[in-house]
C-alpha cells in the first residue's frame, strides 16, 4: 500500500464502524457526573494541601515565639512536628479519564470472609499468561516505585489501597534493581519459591480465573532468602498490571 488515495480509502473502510450505544445519553451523563466528581475531589484535596501549608508554619511560629518569651532557656528549641501522611487518599473513580473501566474495573471483595486478601481483581478481561508475559512482568516490576501516580497506572484497582500504604511507609525500597535478583518468574503454582498455600488462598478469595491469570515474581537481595518478596501480576485486555505482594 503506497498511495495516499489507498490510505484514504482504507481509513473510510466500513470496518472502522462500531455499534452505537443504546443508552448513549445516560452513559454520557454518568460520565459527566464522574468528571464533575473528580474535579471536585481534586479541588478538595488541593484546598486541604493549601490550608495545611498555610496553617502548619503559622502554628510552628506561634510555638517558637511562645518558647522564646515564656519558656526556660533549655526549651527554646521547638520540637519537630512529625510529618503525617494524608489519612485518606481519593482514588480516581471507575471510568475516569486515563483509567478506562475496561482496564481498571472496580475491585471485588474476597469470597472468604476472613481471607488472606483485602481486595480481589475483577476477573472480567483477564488473560492467561502468554509468551510476552515474563518480559512484561519484569518491565512493570522495574517501573514500580517511581511514584504513586505512576504506580496506579501500573496496577489493578485491588492493589491501590496497598500502594498507598506502601508509599506512606516510604515506597518500594526493596525494588532497587541493583540490590535484588529474581529467583522465580512464572505462573502461580506450588514450587520451592512460591509460598505454600498461596495458590489455594487466591483461588479461595478471588476464584480460579484470577489464580490462572496470575504471574508471580519472587525476588530479593542476593544470598538473603529470608528477605524474599513475592509480587503478583495479571494481564487484563493486553495490559500487564501489578495486583498484590506477599
Amino acid at each position, binding site marked *: 500500500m503506497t498511495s495516499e488515495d489507498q490510505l484514504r480509502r482504507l481509513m473510510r473502510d466500513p470496518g472502522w464502524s462500531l455499534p452505537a450505544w443504546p443508552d448513549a445519553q445516560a452513559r454520557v*451523563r454518568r460520565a459527566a457526573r464522574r468528571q464533575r466528581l473528580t474535579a471536585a475531589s481534586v479541588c478538595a484535596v488541593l484546598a486541604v494541601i493549601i490550608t495545611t501549608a498555610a496553617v502548619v508554619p503559622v502554628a510552628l511560629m506561634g510555638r517558637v515565639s511562645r518558647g522564646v518569651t515564656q519558656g526556660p532557656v533549655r526549651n527554646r528549641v521547638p520540637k519537630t512536628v512529625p510529618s503525617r501522611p494524608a489519612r485518606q487518599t481519593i482514588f480516581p473513580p471507575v471510568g475516569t479519564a486515563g483509567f478506562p473501566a475496561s482496564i481498571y474495573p472496580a475491585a471485588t471483595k474476597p469470597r472468604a470472609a476472613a481471607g488472606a486478601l483485602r481486595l480481589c481483581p475483577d476477573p472480567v478481561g483477564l488473560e492467561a499468561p502468554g509468551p510476552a508475559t515474563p518480559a512484561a512482568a519484569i518491565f512493570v516490576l522495574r517501573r514500580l516505585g517511581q511514584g504513586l501516580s505512576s504506580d496506579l497506572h501500573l496496577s489493578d484497582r485491588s492493589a491501590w489501597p496497598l500502594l498507598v500504604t506502601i508509599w506512606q511507609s516510604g515506597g518500594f525500597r526493596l525494588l532497587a534493581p541493583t540490590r535484588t535478583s529474581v529467583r522465580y518468574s512464572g505462573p502461580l503454582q506450588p514450587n520451592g519459591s512460591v509460598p505454600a498455600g498461596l495458590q489455594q488462598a487466591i483461588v479461595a478469595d478471588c476464584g480460579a480465573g484470577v489464580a490462572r491469570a496470575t504471574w508471580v515474581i519472587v525476588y530479593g537481595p542476593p544470598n538473603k532468602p529470608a528477605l524474599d518478596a513475592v509480587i503478583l501480576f495479571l494481564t487484563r485486555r493486553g495490559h500487564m498490571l501489578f495486583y498484590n505482594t506477599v
Partner: protein
Amino acid sequence: MPDASLARDSFGEFVAGALPGLLRFGHVLTGDPREAEDLVQEALARSLRHWRSVRSADAGPYVRRAMVNSHITRWRRWEARVRLGEVPDWGADDPAMRRGEDWDRLRRALVRLPVRQRTVLVLRYYEDLPDARIAELMNCRPGTVRSQAARGLASLRSLLEPEPETVPGGGDL
C-alpha cells in the same frame, strides 16, 4: 427551566446523530474499539459540561477537537502503562466483525505509529483537513504537521510492505 430542557434536548439530538461518526473517528484514531468508546464518552461528557457555550453548528468539530486533545494527552499520561505483544484480533471469530485483509493490516500498522504521527494521518486522510487546520487542532506549526505526516507515511509504507518470500535452500548468490 426551559433553557436547561432545551439544552438537554439539543445535546440528546446531537449525540443521537453524531455518535456513529464519532465512534468511527475514535476507532481510526486509537485503533482499538474499547479505547475509542472511552475517548468518545469522555469527550462527549466534557462537551456536555460546556454545552451552553457550544453552538450547535460547531458541536461536531468541538467534540472531535476534544477527542484529539484527550487522545494525545492520555497517551502522554499512559506512557507508564505496558502493552503486551501484538494488537489483538478484535472479533476475529465473529463473522459479523470479520474485515478485509488490507484493512486489518492498516489497523495493525496504524497502532504501531507514534501517537502524533497517527493523529496527523487520521486528520489528513480520514477527516480531509488542511494542514493549517490540523496544526491549529494539535497546537503546533503547519511545518510540524507536514513533517509528522511524511514520517508517518514512510513508517506506514515500511510496516505494510509484504515480507520477502524465503526461497527454500536459497542462500547468497
